[in-house]
């Protein structure tokens, strides 16, 4: 068993007892202390123990070998395959609580413990990491020396000696063990001459007459060298990367052991004639001439790696697809019935293995270079730089003296060519002075140009009225001028279809923009003064100007203060005062919130979409509609808030009746009908539901006394709600009541027969829209008792009741408020 742990402890005894034992690995030195002072030894022992334990625990007879197909030693849950327990599935573990948790499985999760053991797939044991090196030779020697001198070495010392940071790469190490010395090149040893040649070719300018690999006699070579030395005098220009100065080169040559002195070259040659020298340690860079016109570093398609393969000719092996399962070769997919026994199932057929060209096998290291040069089709020598592509600067063309800018056609030539390209800047001034009529000639519209060019395809039919110079008439500058004034006339006559359409569109499109503009103007109206009272305005303007100049004067004199300050009353919103914890300097009613009318924005929205419903411009309507919130006289009553709410409700109720349906002949068709009815619905429906639910049911059932009271009130109130409606109906035009919505007179006895039709419509509409509890059946009967057979008026009734109640409540609240405030004051 211990043989498995080569190099670890408890090896000494065996070694000593039976010498002919086959040993694997290198032993520890006998001088090494075998007791527990050596940490590594103890570690090794511990590790061995662990492995022993595991094997004895899992396997019943120590170690069992099963799972022969997979090559594993252990199988099953806790290595239970083959044991009495057999195979036991893993316990069910609910993932309900940790469903959101990260569930990523490592391969280790599916591996048995045995797999981590020494013989498992993934052995886990204490190892020295890659960056450290167990330099045994060193340690041994050190230990030998040290142990002789002193026994006081601590464990750390030993450890430090044994494990040290790796300095040499394994490749270098192997090379060094093979006799390689740092500084030498790697490869087959070569003769000195060869080496020298190579060196010359690499380090210096090669003579032009001699290719690098051509064989030459020694004498010639020497001559060459001398030549080169002469060439290296400072006066000679060196192209490419400059060589270090000759003195430095000399030093280099002298220092390097293997390199040769030029002085005693003959002697050296004779001396080293039969000695093979290691190759040069040069990293050969091939500088290739750039022949294509791609950018630097461009490599074409092959480097793009489009399909995941580096080389398209290489078969995509399964290994690449399934990186974990390393199945290769043709065996994958070969069935039993195929009787191809002679085939090597695990052989890989790779196109790389085939030759694509007939080449002779190269035998020498220099041939690598030659091959390279052949491949890249260049000669390894330095060439004098010649400017290959100088940017050729062409002189500007000589303009003939009699050249005149702008073409002059002979009189017979008909179609005027497009205007010549703008002349050079230096000459542009002259042309503008000399030939003004030419610029006018450019002004063609599409039709004239098309006619002139003979292209009539874009016209639906040739315009009859278009007065275009007939083809035969000479187009002199004067005649060209005629073309342009004619153009408007052709458009004014609506002969062409698109002309008519254009005209129509120009008439129709402004309407939405107009309304938008009026909106905008309304919004910024206060920024401007109306131009109607011009005298007043000018007076005011002059006043303002005077004031402004006064202010400026004051400022220029630095007289800030009374002169520059102007005081005016400003009424803060009561709510603002409340929020700022400041008592309102004015009475709450004094604040006129007509400016910040709450409906303004909504109205703007509705008006923005108004053009969808309009087909003809209805300016008077829109203006009256827009101005209605502004023209409402400021509330004079004591309770401004209430009056406001009243206003809005009354206003809406005035609009509500769908009059055009009743009297389509008398009333101009109003495009607001859809919007208005929608609005009305929105505002009317809640009271209906609300009151039908509350008043009708409960009052009739529960409280009779109250009902009487309510009815009494109703008799008073009936007048109120009916009237706005009836007044509108009586009025043929809708604009008047809208504008004077507040000045509605109470005309009591206006029960129109035409109302019924509306009612019916309304009822039918309403029935589908009713939400909440259904209207009770006793409703109509009750209304009949009120001598009013319309639901509509009843609705208005309830509405009025609601308002009344509201008012009452508010009054109460107000009273309370007053009381409170009074108390507060006191």
């Amino acid at each position, binding site marked *: 068993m211990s043989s498995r742990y080569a190099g670890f402890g408890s090896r000494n005894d065996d070694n000593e007892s039976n010498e002919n034992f086959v040993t694997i690995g290198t032993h520890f030195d006998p001088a090494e202390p075998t007791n527990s002072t050596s940490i590594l030894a103890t570690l090794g022992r511990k590790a061995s123990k662990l492995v022993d334990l595991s094997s004895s625990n899992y396997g019943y007879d120590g170690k069992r070998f099963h799972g022969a197909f997979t090559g594993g030693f252990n199988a099953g849950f806790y290595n239970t395959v083959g044991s009495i327990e057999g195979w036991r599935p893993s316990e069910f573990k609910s993932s309900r609580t940790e469903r959101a948790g990260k569930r990523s499985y490592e391969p280790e999760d599916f591996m048995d413990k045995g797999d981590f053991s020494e013989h498992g797939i993934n052995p886990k044991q204490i190892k020295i990491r890659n960056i450290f090196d167990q330099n045994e030779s060193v340690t041994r020697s050190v230990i030998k020396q040290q142990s002789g001198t002193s026994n006081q070495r601590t464990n750390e010392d030993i450890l430090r000696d044994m494990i040290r940071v790796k300095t040499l790469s394994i490749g270098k190490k192997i090379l060094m063990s093979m006799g390689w010395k740092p500084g030498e090149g790697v490869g087959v040893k070569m003769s000195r001459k060869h080496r020298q040649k190579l060196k010359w070719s690499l380090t210096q300018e090669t003579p032009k007459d001699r290719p690098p690999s051509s064989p030459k006699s020694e004498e010639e070579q020497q001559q060459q060298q001398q030549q080169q030395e002469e060439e290296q005098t400072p006066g000679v220009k060196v192209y490419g990367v400059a060589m270090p100065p000759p003195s430095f080169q000399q030093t280099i040559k002298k220092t390097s052991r293997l390199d040769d002195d030029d002085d005693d070259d003959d002697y050296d040659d004779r001396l080293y004639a039969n000695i093979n020298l290691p190759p040069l340690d040069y990293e050969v860079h091939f500088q290739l001439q750039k022949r294509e016109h791609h950018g630097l570093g461009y490599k074409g398609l092959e480097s793009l790696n489009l399909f995941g393969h580096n080389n398209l000719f290489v078969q995509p092996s399964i290994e690449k697809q399934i990186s974990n399962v390393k199945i290769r070769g043709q065996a994958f997919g070969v069935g039993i019935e195929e009787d191809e026994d002679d085939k090597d199932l695990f052989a890989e057929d790779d196109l790389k293995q085939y030759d694509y060209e007939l080449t002779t096998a190269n035998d020498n290291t220099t041939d690598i270079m030659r091959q390279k040069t052949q491949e890249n089709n260049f000669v390894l020598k330095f060439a004098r730089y010649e400017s290959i592509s100088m940017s050729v600067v062409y002189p500007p063309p000589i303009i003939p003296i009699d050249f005149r800018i702008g073409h002059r056609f002979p009189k017979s030539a008909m179609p005027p060519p497009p205007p010549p390209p703008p002349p050079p800047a230096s000459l542009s001034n002259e042309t503008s002075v000399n030939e003004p009529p030419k610029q006018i000639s450019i002004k063609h519209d599409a039709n004239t140009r098309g006619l002139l060019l003979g292209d009539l395809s874009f016209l639906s039919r040739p315009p009859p009225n278009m007065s275009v110079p007939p083809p035969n008439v000479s187009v002199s500058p004067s005649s060209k001028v005629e073309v342009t004034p004619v153009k408007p006339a052709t458009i004014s006559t609506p002969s062409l279809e698109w002309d008519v359409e254009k005209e129509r569109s120009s008439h129709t499109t402004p309407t939405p923009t107009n309304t938008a503009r009026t909106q905008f103007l309304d919004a910024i109206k206060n920024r401007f003064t109306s131009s109607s009272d011009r005298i007043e305005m000018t007076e005011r303007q002059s006043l303002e100007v005077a004031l402004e100049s006064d202010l400026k004067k004051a400022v220029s004199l630095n007289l800030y203060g009374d002169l*520059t300050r*102007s005081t005016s009353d400003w009424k803060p919103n009561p709510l*603002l005062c409340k*929020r*700022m914890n400041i008592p309102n300097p004015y009475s709450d009613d004094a604040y006129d919130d007509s400016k910040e009318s709450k409906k303004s924005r909504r109205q703007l929205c509705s008006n923005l979409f108004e053009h969808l419903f309009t087909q003809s411009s209805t300016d008077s309507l829109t203006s009256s509609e827009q101005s209605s919130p502004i023209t409402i006289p400021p509330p004079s009553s004591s309770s401004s808030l209430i009056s406001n709410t009243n206003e809005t409700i009354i206003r809406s109720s005035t609009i509500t009746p769908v009059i055009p349906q009743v009297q389509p002949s008398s009333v101009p068709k109003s495009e607001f009908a859809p919007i208005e009815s929608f609005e009305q619905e929105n505002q009317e429906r809640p009271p209906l539901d609300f009151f039908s639910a509350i008043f009708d049911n409960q009052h009739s059932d529960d409280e009779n006394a109250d009902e009487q009271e309510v009815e009494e009130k109703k008799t008073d109130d009936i007048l109120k709600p009916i009237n706005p409606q009836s007044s509108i109906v009586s009025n043929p035009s809708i604009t008047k009541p809208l504008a004077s919505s507040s000045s509605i007179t109470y005309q009591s006895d206006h029960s129109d027969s035409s109302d019924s039709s509306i009612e019916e419509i309304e009822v039918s509409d309403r029935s589908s829209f009713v939400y909440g509890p259904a209207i009770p059946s006793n409703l109509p009967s009750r209304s009949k008792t009120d001598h009013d057979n319309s639901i509509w008026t009843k609705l208005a009734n309830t509405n009025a009741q609601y308002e009344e109640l509201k008012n009452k409540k508010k009054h109460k609240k107000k009273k309370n408020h007053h009381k409170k405030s009074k108390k507060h*004051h006191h």
Partner: protein
Amino acid sequence: MQLERKFPAAQGAIRCVRYNIDGNYCLTSGSDRTIKLWKPDSSLAIKTYTGHSQEVLDVHSSYDNSRLCSGGGDKRVLYIDVMSGKIMKKYQAHAGRVQAVRFNEEASIIFSASIDGTVKIWDIKSREYDPIQVLDDAKDSVTSLSLGNNELLTSSLDQRVRIYDIRYGKLYEDYIGHNLTYINISHDQQCFLVGTLSSQIMLFDKINGKLLQTFVDYTNNTYMIENALSNDDQYIYSGSENGRLICWNLLTAKQICSIEHESDNRKSVNTLTHHPKEDKLLTAQEGNIYLWKKQDKIEEKEEIKKTFINDKQINTSKFVSGGFE
């Protein structure tokens, strides 16, 4: 002033930097449409608020640090919950970009000034999305607003300062004669400081509109450069278009210092805010926030200051809560 700390806000150009009520945190708004909450003493970014669709031009935090309001180039005024970053309200009635926003003391109202020439007042407590009042007295863009105890001051490009005195129900219009970019009311509520586009900051008496002091020697000709008063109203700070932070003595109008933010950056310093309690100042140049600290006590003339303040006392009618007496 000594540079204590400098850190990048990483939100484009910083449009405004504001201390919160106690000076522990600050808010910055950037041109990348975000608002960031910082702890400037440790340059810790706490939260980023989004919601504007264009650059955010001004931001203000409520007295209890629970809400923010902000206005930006998208003409919107946002009311944001600080903890969650949710947009509680979005007011959209301005016709131009919103230059300045301000809570009132109880954070129940937002004032917003816009280049459409109006100041709009929004009631946060109600569910209405219309302003409760629109102050459209300005004849040109309103560039900034400042809130006193019971008045609202606005500066406008029609060269006027407007003081809306809510307590008296009066509007005072002071003609200044220069294009006004920034207004700041002093902490004692007696005077206001106006930044102009003529490279001078002017200090006016709020009560009678008299010019008290002019601070010069800095450049402000094109941008809206903010100014600040120190917490004890002794010094006046301002950015400058040549990348400097400038400090004046309020009484003598002498320039105490003029520090370059960066030796190689002369971009304008548009925004700054003074710590409400300590002698600290936050400025922003381009994308960086700078925290300055007053290095040493510059000799002060305490007496003069006091007399100056005493002179300004005027006999206003006494106001008792619940009404006038």
